[in-house]
């Protein structure tokens, strides 16, 4: 149950910079998720923490001790790989026992530990089978068992749910989350799936192109994404992003774009500037009394929620609708933007302006 501090970490492959001066602190017992698209460097970061790659610049500290030069086996970490990496020629029992056997534990202790962890993960009946005889979900639990049997200080997972079918994935999410809470082990989890990150993490670090964009808990990440990339990446369907200007007219601040004009009540800005307005689909309300006029282009009914693609001039907006009245394509509607949920990003820096 250890703390991991990553200080100014840079990683280059040849001349390509894969991680650029990354600084993160992962507190004990956290379920810390590294979230980002492919190529963002999240897996590389995980592998650096594990010791599977060399550091170009910077340092990693586990429990206050610098581990840059230490091989993986000396870092008291455990890892689950995307394809589980089980030893194909060994039984499940031997797979799980391997980390203990290598460290010279007595046979009795080995058997006891393996039995314990298998029971906890509900794989006791599989102990004599070989990996190729197991389903994907079973293999995953064996991989988890092998990692956790040692009670490691740090638990690393590299997209372990990607190989599972959709239903299993949801089950596994809940399972992992409660398991982690039970064991209390500091966990670092890599994924590109933002819904996965949101549902499991206590803290999320969003990466893009080797740079950390934001570190926050899920709620804050969702509500107050600090930059355009994070705003667009977190949340599904994606946040609406409307480029335009904030201007001061008649001692009031207004947002103007080619197609929209909004009065910004109670908001203040330092100066007029080019901005991007971000607003989530669920924060746009259909109110046919007054509002911005638009026409429904596409209706996506998903049961309890309906998503509408509404065009205002040339601007497409995704709007969430939970009302009972049936809406069809072609209908005209009036939209209202929830005032306190509008996020303004400076167009040049792509960073959040209002707080």
């Amino acid at each position, binding site marked *: 149950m250890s703390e991991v501090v990553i200080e100014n970490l840079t990683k280059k492959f040849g001349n390509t910079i894969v991680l650029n001066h990354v600084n993160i602190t992962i507190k004990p017992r956290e379920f810390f998720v590294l979230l980002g698209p492919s190529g963002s460097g999240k897996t590389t970061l995980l592998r650096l923490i594990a010791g599977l790659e060399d550091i170009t610049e910077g340092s990693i500290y586990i429990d206050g001790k610098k581990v840059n030069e230490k091989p993986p086996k000396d870092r008291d970490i455990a890892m689950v790989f995307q394809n589980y990496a089980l030893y194909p*020629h060994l039984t499940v029992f031997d797979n799980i026992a391997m980390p203990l056997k*290598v460290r010279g534990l007595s046979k009795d202790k080995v058997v006891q530990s393996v039995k314990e962890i298998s029971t906890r993960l509900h794989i006791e009946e599989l102990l004599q089978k070989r990996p190729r005889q197991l389903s994907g979900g079973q293999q995953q639990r064996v991989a988890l068992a092998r990692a956790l049997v040692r009670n490691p200080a740090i638990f690393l997972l590299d997209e372990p749910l990607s190989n599972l079918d959709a239903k299993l994935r949801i089950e596994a999410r809940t399972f992992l989350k409660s398991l982690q809470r039970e064991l209390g082990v500091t966990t670092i989890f890599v994924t590109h799936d933002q819904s996965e990150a949101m549902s499991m993490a206590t803290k999320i670090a969003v990466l893009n192109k080797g740079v950390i964009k934001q570190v926050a808990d899920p709620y804050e990440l969702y509500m107050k994404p600090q930059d355009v990339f994070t705003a667009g990446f977190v949340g599904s369907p994606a946040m609406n992003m409307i480029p335009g200007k904030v201007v001061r007219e008649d001692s009031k601040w207004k947002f103007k774009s080619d197609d929209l004009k909004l009065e910004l009540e109670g908001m203040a800005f330092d100066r007029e500037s080019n901005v991007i307005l971000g607003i989530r689909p669920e924060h746009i309300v259909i109110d046919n009394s007054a509002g911005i006029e638009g026409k429904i282009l596409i209706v996506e009914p998903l049961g309890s929620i309906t998503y509408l693609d509404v065009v205002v001039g040339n601007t497409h907006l995704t709007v969430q609708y939970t009302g009972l009245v049936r809406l069809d394509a072609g209908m005209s509607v009036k939209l209202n933007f929830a005032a306190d949920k509008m996020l303004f990003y400076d167009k040049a820096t792509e960073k959040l302006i209002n707080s």
Partner: protein
Amino acid sequence: MKKLNIVLLIILLIFSLFSLFPIYWTVITALKVNSEIFTTTPVFFPTKITFSNFYTPGQTFGAVSQTAFGSLPWLINSTVIALLSSLIGTFLIGAPAAYALTHYLKNVWFGRTVLLMMMIPEAALIIPFYVIIIRVNLINTWWGLTLVYLSFTAPLSTWLLMGFFGDLPRSVEEAASIDGLSAYRIFYRIALPMVMPGIIVSIILNFINAWNEFLYALVLTYMPFPSGAQTVPIFLTDFIVIEKSFAWGGLAAAGVIVIIPSIVIGIYAQKYLVRGWTMGAVKE
């Protein structure tokens, strides 16, 4: 394309005929009575069958008192030497080298050198080998011949296994490293078991090559077990040379005895043999 298939079939049948006829001829010659062998009009479908060419009380395989059983001393030598060369070549030399070359010393020139080792002709190496083996007093011994045979089993094993080791999933070895295994242990307990099919191919292929090898055995051995390390090919050759003029039946019988295990192994180990021969040539 029925018509084309028929043409193809005919061609294939011709090839098959060509392929099988020598074997067929040898087998029936072994089973023929002398009168049907020594005729100027060859008999393609024997009317009488006899096993006397294989074994006749008192004399077998023709005039020379060599029984099928009598080839045992040579068989022993061949078996031991072939086993030693294929096993040592594969496990002791080939596997660790192949692993090293695909994981630690990944330089193109090392692979090329291995290939080079296989291209130097036996006829050129036999002279220095002869000198060396005599100097260390291993002439006409199992170890003498085995050491020389390693000159083709070791590189072949290495080359074959390089393909297999190169295909191993990296993540399993990384997991082992995280689990705490040292590099050597990863090789021995994780990687090596995972390339078992390749190991089998290597052992079988090398065994066959060693079994059939001729030139080195010819020069480096001169007496059968227990006085020497002469192998089956030498025995057969002497046999042919001696029997050439008269005991055709016996000759054919000797041939049949040697072919049968080859063909049987060839059919059963087909999968492995084909993989071995086409290895490196085709990515399957």
